């Protein structure tokens, strides 16, 4: 593909410092996954199981006048039919849940519509029958009478004062004084630093432009799937593929009106989530059907259902204005954005406001966001929710500023780069961060210094993501032979079994092959927040390190007991208890101590239950080369390099994989992915044929350069790495295409029909 030489590299401090960390062992879950033995959501079958099916709205916006289930119930083989009437009606009110806030009122109405259908595919009812075929036939027999309303499909239509309202009485939050009239704008948020007017007055060059993007889906391979059963005494068991077994438990409890202790959730392997499995769709329906039918109920979505009814992320629109001195010093930045939330409030526009300009030290800035409801499925989290669209807008404007200043876009970024001590728009001052290092690595890369051919263009863009910590639990148990089991409460999405095993091995000073990681159910490990926010390697990793340290302390105690010395006289070194300042005692290995554990006080295990603070923010810089066919508007990505401050890469291959995967998704977002709706509001591209994620042959090998600037908040310097890589690509691709054609590309996706029209337009 032009760059035969493998460019992946690790730069920075971590190299060679550790025994296990930074090596690349085979992942513990790898063999099962490549041989097809791993059990994903749809793989589980239990005795007496029946099959559920959801009846979905064919209308984007409609009042539900009546639902008649008589004919469906009369069909032989049908065991239960449910509607919203089978669930408690939940009041309004939001609760914080990791990266997003959750309204159980809205969530219950997303799981099953009550009075109104708010998007094509909205769940209206569900049936369970002895076979999937009977369930499908029964679903067709459910008669729903709708009063079809005019659909509101875009932020622009929704903000029109004459637009139909999705939610009667919705008053925009975050505006003072509160508006008197209800609207489709759910909330306004604003973040600001300094004095905007003074900043622009100081500017010698100002650029301003408008941008737009479309709704995109996470595109995970595995459709949502679960099995639920309920015992005669009301105890539920749910097997589900999700980003958090404790999340599923909490949400099912609330939505079904049950105590948490009556629900056990067993995590299946997850075939991709990217944020889209941080919510529940099927699980509460399956539990309600299981309760009503007395049989275990399996539910598996089709791809069509996944696209129509599960979490895409918001399409957005925005204006950005940046002012700078002639030397490139930015004096002011103003960002205003509208994101489409889908049918219920909660687009990630606030997170967009908090992240868009954050790679830069800008003294005077403002970011305003509007959360706008439209008749599309409710947005769910998608990798760095809100940040990619904001970065597309800001990083494209930065590129225009560089053009106008006649300055290299990389130098412009270097000149204004956030550093340790820079105040972020959302409040805090940064501790050690490696953003500048990513730019310097880009500048020194072979890629940046390779000349381009005709019809080719190069784009550069940066991105920021907070990364979070949160609640995590872990335990480490020593087996009788000295091998170790480490238990976590987070589904393994990005290789966390490997990283947990490696951190355990590092602390214990043993080979990683002697550590077996386990992702446990909700009754076998204490509570952990869901897998999201790039938190697991950091926060659950921190818990694992503490649990392993707990074990080390016990190992030293046992050795001290055997040797009849004080524990302070025993150190733990290379997997051995060693007596300090004497060679009187032969060092004891972990296996030696394990063997004698019964005689020295019983089994040994460690645990940690923490709320991890100190998550290190992440920054990345991506370089993209494209070639544009000027006669067709086809864009070929020629070369792509993703550079990121990753703190410390526990397993560099999986960190590189995160960078490559994020870049691939971002390239798809930039070039071809979009929800296409009919005038009536029906989704037209409900499969991967016409919802075009890149296929392998569409992409070059994506080179990953890991910059290691250790996070002071983690014992091994870990920063979250999973989300930053999807933030820069939209702008990196758009900037590359803009340079290739000599015109500013400001609307995503850059699909060939759109780009060809742009190329052939005047001006």
């Amino acid at each position: 593909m032009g760059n035969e030489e493998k460019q992946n590299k690790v730069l920075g401090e971590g190299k060679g410092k550790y025994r296990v960390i930074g090596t690349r062992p085979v992942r513990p879950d790898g063999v099962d996954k490549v041989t097809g033995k791993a059990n994903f959501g749809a793989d589980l079958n239990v005795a007496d199981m029946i099959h559920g099916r959801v009846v979905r709205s064919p209308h984007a916006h409609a009042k539900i006048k009546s639902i008649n289930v008589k004919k469906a119930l009369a069909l032989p083989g049908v065991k239960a039919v449910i509607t919203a009437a089978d669930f408690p009606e939940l009041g309004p009110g939001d609760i914080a849940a990791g990266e997003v806030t959750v309204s159980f009122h809205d969530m219950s109405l997303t799981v099953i519509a009550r009075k109104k259908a708010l998007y094509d595919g909205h769940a209206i009812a569900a049936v369970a029958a002895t076979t999937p075929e009977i369930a499908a036939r029964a679903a067709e027999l459910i008669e729903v009478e709708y009063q079809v309303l005019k659909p509101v499909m875009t932020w622009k239509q929704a903000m029109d004062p004459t637009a139909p309202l999705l939610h009667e009485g919705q008053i925009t939050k975050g505006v003072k004084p509160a508006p008197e009239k209800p609207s489709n704008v759910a909330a306004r948020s604003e973040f600001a630093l300094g004095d905007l007017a003074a900043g622009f007055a100081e500017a010698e060059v100002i650029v301003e432009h408008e941008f737009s993007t479309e709704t995109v889906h996470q595109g995970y391979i595995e459709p949502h799937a679960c099995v639920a059963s309920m015992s005669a005494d009301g105890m539920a068991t749910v097997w589900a593929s999700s980003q958090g077994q404790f999340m599923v438990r909490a949400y099912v409890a609330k939505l079904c009106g049950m105590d948490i202790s009556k629900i056990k959730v067993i995590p299946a392997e997850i075939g991709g989530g990217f944020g889209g499995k941080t919510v529940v769709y099927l699980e509460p329906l399956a539990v309600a059907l299981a309760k009503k039918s007395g049989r275990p109920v399996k539910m598996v979505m089709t791809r069509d259902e996944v696209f129509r009814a599960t979490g895409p992320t918001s399409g957005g629109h925005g204006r950005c204005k940046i002012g700078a001195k002639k030397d490139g010093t930015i004096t002011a930045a103003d960002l205003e954005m509208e994101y489409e939330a889908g049918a219920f409030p909660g687009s990630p526009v606030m997170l967009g406001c908090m992240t868009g300009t954050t790679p830069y030290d800008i003294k005077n800035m403002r970011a305003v966001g509007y959360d706008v409801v439209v008749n599309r499925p409710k947005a769910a989290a998608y990798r760095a929710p809100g940040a990619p669209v904001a970065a597309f807008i800001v990083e494209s404007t930065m590129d225009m500023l560089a053009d106008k200043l006649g300055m290299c876009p990389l130098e412009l970024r270097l000149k204004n780069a956030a550093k340790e001590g820079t105040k972020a728009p959302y409040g805090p001052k940064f501790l050690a961060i490696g953003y500048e290092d990513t730019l310097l690595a880009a500048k020194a890369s072979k890629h940046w210094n390779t000349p381009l051919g005709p019809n080719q263009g190069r784009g550069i863009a940066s991105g920021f993501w907070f990364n979070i910590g949160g609640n995590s639990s872990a335990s480490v148990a020593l087996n009788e032979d000295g091998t170790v089991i480490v238990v976590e409460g987070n589904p393994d999405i990005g290789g966390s079994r490997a990283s947990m095993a490696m951190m355990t091995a590092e602390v214990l000073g043993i080979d990683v092959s002697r550590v077996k990681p386990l992702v446990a159910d909700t009754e076998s490990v204490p509570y952990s927040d869901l897998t999201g926010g790039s938190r697991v390697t950091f926060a659950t990793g921190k818990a694992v390190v503490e649990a392993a340290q707990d074990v080390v302390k016990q190992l030293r105690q046992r050795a001290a007991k055997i040797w009849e010395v004080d524990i302070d006289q025993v150190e733990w070194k290379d997997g051995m208890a060693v007596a300090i300042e004497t060679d009187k005692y032969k060092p004891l290995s972990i296996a030696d101590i394990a063997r004698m554990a019964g005689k020295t006080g019983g089994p040994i295990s460690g645990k940690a239950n923490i709320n991890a603070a100190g998550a290190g923010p992440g920054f990345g810089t991506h370089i993209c080369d494209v070639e544009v066919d000027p006669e067709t508007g086809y864009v070929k990505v020629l070369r792509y390099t993703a550079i990121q401050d990753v703190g410390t890469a526990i397993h560099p291959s999986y960190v590189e994989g995160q960078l490559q995967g994020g870049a691939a998704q971002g390239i798809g977002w930039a070039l071809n992915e979009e929800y296409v709706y009919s005038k009536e509001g029906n989704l037209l591209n409900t499969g991967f044929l016409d919802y075009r994620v890149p296929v392998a042959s569409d992409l070059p090998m994506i080179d990953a350069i890991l910059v290691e600037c250790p996070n002071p908040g983690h014992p091994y310097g870990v920063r979250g790495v999973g989300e930053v890589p999807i933030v820069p690509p939209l702008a990196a691709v758009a900037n590359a295409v803009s340079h290739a054609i000599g015109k500013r590309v400001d609307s995503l996706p850059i699909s060939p029909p759109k780009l060809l029209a742009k190329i052939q337009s005047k001006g």
Partner: protein
Amino acid sequence: MAEIQYAAPATVAAAVKALDAAKGKAKVLAGGTDLLVQLRAGRVNANTLVDIKHIPELRKVKKDKGGYRIGAAVSGAELGESDDFRATWPGVLEGFELIGSTQIQGRASLGGNLCNGSPAADSVPGMIAAGATVTIAGAKGTREAKVEDIVTGPGKTSLKPSEFVVSINLPKRAKRSGDAYLRFIPRTEMDIAVVGAAVNLTLDAKGVCTDARVALGAVAPKPLLVKAAAKALVGTKVDDAALDALAAAASAACDPIDDKRGTIEFRTKVAGVLARRAALIALERARKNA
């Protein structure tokens, strides 16, 4: 999905009988790469599937009077194994080989791609440009038809309920002739043509084009044979002026729709671009085929 009868006849006559008995409720199954997907999605209703893969002659590629008779159920992978065919009709084969993935190529057939009736079928413009005919078996006997007369609209063909395509027949390759097929998709593979263009042309000893056929896919309710575009090449040395005229004629022939895959404007423009590019490849091949 209702219950479906499955028949796997071993002869053409038995297949015709099964189709006739189903009175229009049968679907012909070859590779099934379109049909099975459509059945699962509920887009097609049928009470009988007549699997023609088990009829030996439908799985054979035969040389016939200097041309080819390709059994309607021959898969892309099987036809692709013939170096002779690849050298003779590269444009037909490259259209066929664009269908689906490697796995799909093990099943997909020329007959199926044609009779599925898609205006965007990748193998059809190449067959039309090649001047291919089909042999059709039916209750009233066997008949021949031109490929361009089979598809009548999206999902519709001129075949009678008892009829099915037995073979695709390619004529003898003229000296100094060559063909090519190009399609536009937003990706590199695993996609459906937004525009397809096939050109088959013949040169005389001086390099003047003496015969040409141009076909377009995905730009009208059915694959098009564009005579005006061919006319633009005949009598020329396929120079820039001729290619411009070809492109203009190809664009002018388009009658596309706006849909999730492309716009009217885009399809119309790109049809001309691809026809021109395909003509250049065909020209190159014709020159080498001296």
